[in-house]
């Protein structure tokens, strides 16, 4: 099956997907609650979309297509309220965070659905190890060519999104010293990493996708676990590096940071992306995962080191006018505060210290998720 044509969509429209944790309020471990949650949520109209994920202790929600921060945030609030309400009925806590700090992957159950069973059969323990929680942001693009150009222009900003969203310092019971340990689980997959450097959709479809398909390794775009990938059936590019933040407010702010950034990049002020930009890509990504906002990244063109925090703050100043036209000032302000005050990973480490237990940290994450809940 050849790669489908890239469906044109309105530039800079937004959609957000969040993978969330289902936690037992009895012992704060992950709990196999998604069948029960989905059952209960079916009874009322859900203010968005909700689907199962690969293991039964995860649930994925997504928003409609939005053009501005206010609408997006308000839908995310309604989605959160519905989830919290359903969770309360079932003794289930819903929360963000890229990993659950002390769950054991071997305890997880694969959700009963053919695709999940098939993935689990292929990847073995990697599938259960993949009980990690990410935020995916879709940005609409007019054409496939636009999508690929934008995708590669974003390469140097990937560390920003990793560092700002990072919320997975603990994994399988231990402090990993990373800010985002979740991405290490993603890197284990053979088709993870970055998209090949092709800027025209036709070339991508013919010179890459078709050839990969001929090898029999992939059947659709779904089989690629890239940091950003084009999604032709939606007419979007999908940023996949973010950990699910602890609050939907941060999720909305990150989405609108991306939106304003894309708006700026589409102006063509920055030099065009080049294959050589990717020389520093993996190093910068590691720095962001390991050290978060304190990480030191290397500018892909000037080859100068700069801390991720400073680079985020400088970028915010650059894109502020674009954010204003998009109605995303509040989001920009939120991101600036996050860059200055620290990400969710540092919040979680503080809670771990303060409460003295991993359970206390999960409890804090649950309370943070429901803050401001109706």
């Amino acid at each position, binding site marked *: 099956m050849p790669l489908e044509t890239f469906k044109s969509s309105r530039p800079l429209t937004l959609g957000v997907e969040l993978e969330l944790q289902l936690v037992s309020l*009895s012992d*704060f471990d992950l709990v196999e*609650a998604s069948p029960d949650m989905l059952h209960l949520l079916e009874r009322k109209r859900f203010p968005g979309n909700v689907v199962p994920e690969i293991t039964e202790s995860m649930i994925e929600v997504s928003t409609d297509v939005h053009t501005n921060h206010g609408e997006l945030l308000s839908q995310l609030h309604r989605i959160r309220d519905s989830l919290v309400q*359903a969770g309360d009925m079932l003794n289930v806590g819903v929360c963000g965070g890229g990993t659950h700090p002390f769950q054991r992957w071997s305890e997880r159950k694969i959700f009963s659905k053919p695709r999940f069973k098939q993935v689990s059969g292929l990847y073995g323990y990697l599938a259960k190890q993949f009980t990690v929680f990410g935020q995916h942001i879709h940005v609409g693009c007019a054409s496939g060519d636009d999508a690929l150009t934008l995708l590669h222009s974003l390469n140097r900003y990937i560390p920003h999104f990793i560092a700002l969203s990072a919320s997975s310092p603990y994994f399988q019971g231990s402090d990993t010293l990373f800010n985002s340990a979740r991405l290490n689980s993603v890197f284990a997959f053979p088709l993870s990493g970055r998209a090949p450097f092709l800027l025209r959709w036709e070339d991508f479809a013919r010179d890459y996708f078709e050839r990969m398909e001929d090898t029999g390794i992939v059947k659709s775009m779904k089989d690629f676990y890239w940091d950003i990938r084009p999604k032709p059936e939606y007419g979007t590019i999908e940023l996949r590096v973010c950990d699910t933040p602890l609050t939907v407010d941060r999720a909305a702010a990150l989405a609108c940071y991306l939106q304003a950034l894309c708006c700026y990049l589409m102006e063509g002020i920055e030099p065009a992306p080049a294959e050589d930009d990717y020389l520093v890509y993996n190093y910068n990504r590691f720095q962001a995962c390991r050290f978060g906002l304190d990480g030191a990244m290397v500018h892909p063109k000037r080859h100068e080191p700069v801390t991720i925090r400073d680079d985020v703050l400088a970028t915010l100043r650059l894109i502020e006018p674009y954010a204003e036209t998009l109605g995303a000032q509040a989001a920009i302000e939120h991101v600036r505060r996050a860059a200055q005050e620290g990400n969710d990973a540092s919040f979680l480490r503080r809670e771990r210290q303060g409460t003295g*237990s991993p*359970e206390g940290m999960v409890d804090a994450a649950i309370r943070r998720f429901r803050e401001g809940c109706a």
Partner: protein
Amino acid sequence: MPEFLTDIAELVWPFSIALAWVLGELVHRIAGLPRITVYALTGFVLSHSQAGLLPLPGESAAMLIANIAFGLILFEFGYRINLRWLRANPWIAASGLVESAATFAAVFAAAELFGMAALPAMLLAALAIASSPAEILRVVNEQRSSGQVTERALHLSALNSIIAAFVFNIIVGLWTFQHSGSLLGAVSNSIVLLAVSGGLGVAFGFAVPGLLRRLGTLGRDATIAFAVAVIFLCSIAQALNMSPVLAALAFGFVARHRRVTLGQAQRNFGALGDLLTVLLFVFIGATLAWPRIASGIGIALAILGARLVAKTAAVVMFARVSGTTWRKGLLTAVALSPMSVLVLAMLVRTREMGIDLMDQLAPLAAATLFLAIAGPLLTQWAVKLAGESAEKEE
């Protein structure tokens, strides 16, 4: 020669435990029966009353160890109960109250129908309210099950056990009053027991986390710390002639709600819990005597039938409104089947008040034996049918 005989007698318990464990593993693997069912059956067959191998349970040194084993299970049980859920979803609490009342009424009616006197019938009905937390928790852990049937069975079992203990104590008070005429003696006995045992547990619930925090061992696994504390607590309670299981339950409750200061503990207390469970259920099986069972079997079956129907009707009635499906409501009710008299017998220590439950409530022995086998099986069956047990990965 006599010396040699004493040595043999000391081998009886280790031998029974070894046999029960081997049988438990075999039967669990071949027939899929819950291990605790096999342990209880082994104890029953080897007991003083049947094969005559084991000494009378109440007279043996195994009593303290059984109490500790029970204490560990009940501590873990208390630690898993989230009282805030009952506030967030009041339908769960309503379901528990109605289910308890219905069970009491149905069992009382059935017992009277069989010609039991009012007071014993009420005692029996009070005991029938409780679903044994120990059996349910063991099956849940053995199956590694999680989901609504599991959660609800655990929480409803906590609720109905507390209600049963409360109702039972009131009736025992009445009973004692009728026999002795002393109202004060009747009431004070059970109140002192409840207050002191509970108070001990609560004190531990505050002190142990505080101590752990001082020691700075919070980051590490707290399994051993809790196990040591439970063993200590149960020994104190037994030495004071109080109820070790009640103290352990209260300890678990309090420790849980001060959870933020606690580290993780292994399910079942790891290998230690598994080991003591073998002993506990052999011990439980050994308390039963066949002649009593035979005499009460007809009425026992009627009572169990009434109990199952009452629990099912009441739990199913609240299933949908409390946020689950009719089917899961039904399975929750089935999962609540286990009934263990020993919990309450230990809890209220009626024998010291001159009431021997097993003697005076003949159907109880039969019901206990029947449910020692069938109860865990029904619970296991319910969580499996609900799709909540972990897939087998051998």
